[in-house]
């Protein structure tokens, strides 16, 4: 083997590569100055999850919009207060008022043990598929399907699928970006402000007798909570109780008297608050 050829080829290519690389380096330095250094700073302060909750295609374009002044500095939902403060520092704007924190809530309690089965359907691999192709064996047409589309979609790993087949939202990790809300084909995932409140954890809009056939813990529209509420804060709409949070004083009477076994109304959204 002729070693000179081997060595010379390597040396020539290497030197060509080095020369070109140096040229590129010089060129990119020359052009790098043109970019707004503010954008870089803002980019670093963002969570880089590219969740898109701000309405821009990713953290990069949001940073550019903030630097231009097109986007509000509190536009990043995922980053929370911390990011807002950092951005306020970078942009030299004071942002005193605290933004309401939102978390995702699963509005269904019908796990494997509670939700009744009325069909033999298999083969679905996602909630989306199960919902649109009617591949669910659950009798309830409104409840959780349990395939975990929300858990898969969560960019922060805040949702896990519990043993009973229901998603569990880790409210300390959840940033309220709302991706799970979009992914859930049955609109069970909803965003709520992270405050103490009473929620009806059932989404079934059917009448009581139909709900009975579908789920052990579904709201049967008995109206007991409406009658017993001392504040008259509860009304019924679409066979589901609607709680007026202005009137509600969180007494918890409705939660205790709700006749459906495992309560359909639950007080306090986060355990953190208690």
């Amino acid at each position, binding site marked *: 083997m002729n070693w000179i*050829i081997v060595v*010379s*080829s390597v040396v*020539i*290519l290497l030197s*060509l*590569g080095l020369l*070109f690389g140096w*040229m*590129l380096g010089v*060129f*990119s330095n020359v*052009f*790098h100055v*043109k*970019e707004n250094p503010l954008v870089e700073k803002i980019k670093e302060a963002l969570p880089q999850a590219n969740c898109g909750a701000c309405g821009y295609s990713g953290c990069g374009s949001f940073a550019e919009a903030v630097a231009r002044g097109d986007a509000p500095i509190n536009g990043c939902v995922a980053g929370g207060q911390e990011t807002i403060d950092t951005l306020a520092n970078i942009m030299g704007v004071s942002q005193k008022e605290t933004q309401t924190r939102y978390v995702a809530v699963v509005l269904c309690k019908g796990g494997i043990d509670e939700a009744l089965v009325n069909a033999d359907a298999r083969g679905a691999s996602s909630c989306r598929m199960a919902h649109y192709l009617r591949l669910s064996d659950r009798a309830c047409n409104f409840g959780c399907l349990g395939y975990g589309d929300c858990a898969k979609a969560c960019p922060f790993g805040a949702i896990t699928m519990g043993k009973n087949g229901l998603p569990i939202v880790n409210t300390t990790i959840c940033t309220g970006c709302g991706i799970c809300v979009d992914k859930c084909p049955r609109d069970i995932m909803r965003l709520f402000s992270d405050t103490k409140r009473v929620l009806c954890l059932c989404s079934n809009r059917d009448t009581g007798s139909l709900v009975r056939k579908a789920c052990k813990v579904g709201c049967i529209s008995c109206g007991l909570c409406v009658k017993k509420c001392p504040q008259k804060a509860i009304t019924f709409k679409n066979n589901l109780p609607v709680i007026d949070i202005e009137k509600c004083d969180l007494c918890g009477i409705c939660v205790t008297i709700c006749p459906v076994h495992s309560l359909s109304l639950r007080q306090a959204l986060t355990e953190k608050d208690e």
Partner: protein
Amino acid sequence: MSLVNILIQTIFSQNFIFMRFLGLCPFFGLTNDMDSSIGMGGAVTFVTVMASVVSYFVYYFVLIPFGVEYLQTIAFILTIAVFVQLVEIYLKKMIPNLYKVMGIYLPLITTNCMILGVTLINIQEGYSLLETIFFAFGSSVGFTLAMVLMTAVRIRMGDSNIPAFFKGAPIVFIAASFIAIAFMGLQGLGG
């Protein structure tokens, strides 16, 4: 061969896309709107001409003196990659909108076989520097022409009622083949 002949040949009768079938990836991928196809044509023109000139020097002043002509392919790919990077850096800073539209197709110019084809044919045909520049310029103008033609066809296609099984890629391929057949009619033009 005169320079005008080279231009006419590369633009029409030996059009790289319709006659040699090189560089088809951006041809099918980026012909959805006029702006991006013209932008792509411009980027490809710059890269092809610059890469051809530099590869001419690399071949005759580096590879031949050292007797390593067999390195031409890899050395040319290196040259092309550098110029694609240059264009990318330039567009990112100066025309970010075009940069966003081109997306993945911009770095893909690196592997656009038309450009490598041009540089290799230059060497194979033994063109002089001037002929090299004309050949490179003509082929990229031909490429841009093809892109613009295809875009115009695709824009019209958007309004027409296409059978379901032809929708999307199939009808685009068929249209492209018709244009190629039309270009065959120009065979022999420019000597």
